[in-house]
């Protein structure tokens, strides 16, 4: 079936380095993509989103890249900080589908001091 998944379940990053979290999707009808951060004991928190008519979008210290040809999504975090340690989820949605999101299983990012 069609699903959203992340390449790696865990990622360890040195403080100050850049982090790259990858996500593959298979639903060719998806036209909205979003990244969430979830800290322990809390609900998912919005980081950044991108629509299918864009290839790249930047936020504060974060960049999302979308490659529709290979159905790949990535989140780049610049100058990773200890507060970036969390689980990161990608999700996708065909906007015609009542905005329903399909989530990947998540990548746990650990920042080393």
């Amino acid at each position: 079936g069609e699903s959203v998944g992340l390449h790696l379940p865990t990622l360890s990053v040195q403080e100050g380095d850049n982090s790259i979290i990858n996500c593959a999707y298979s639903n060719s009808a998806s036209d909205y993509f979003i990244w969430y951060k979830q800290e322990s004991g809390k609900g998912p928190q919005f980081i950044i989103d991108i629509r299918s008519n864009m290839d790249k979008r930047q936020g504060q210290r974060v960049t999302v890249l979308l490659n529709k040809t290979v159905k790949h999504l990535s989140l780049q975090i610049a100058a990773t900080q200890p507060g970036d340690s969390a689980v990161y989820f990608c999700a996708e949605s065909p906007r015609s589908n009542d905005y329903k999101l399909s989530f990947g299983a998540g990548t746990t990012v650990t920042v080393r001091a």
Partner: protein
Amino acid sequence: DAGITQSPRHKVTETGTPVTLRCHQTENHRYMYWYRQDPGHGLRLIHYSYGVKDTDKGEVSDGYSVSRSKTEDFLLTLESATSSQTSVYFCAIQLPWGEQYFGPGTRLTVT
């Protein structure tokens, strides 16, 4: 900030008992969603609502029902709780500019 609360935040119940979880929003967003989160599965959609009295099933709806009699409240009911429904439950609202905004979650344990 969008206001969304969930109650209770923690609950322990016995197998076979009914359980109702409540999601309350302080703004009049049309779409509301219930998810469950289990290790290794990310978040999976249980049910969602696109207006008062308008609801539909998600991918893991078996054993759950929902109701929405007011715009601000979306209730999730486990008619007869089972151990497989032990999970963390999140409610979310659809914001006009695209994202879904999540509540703090309810940790449910069925013994």
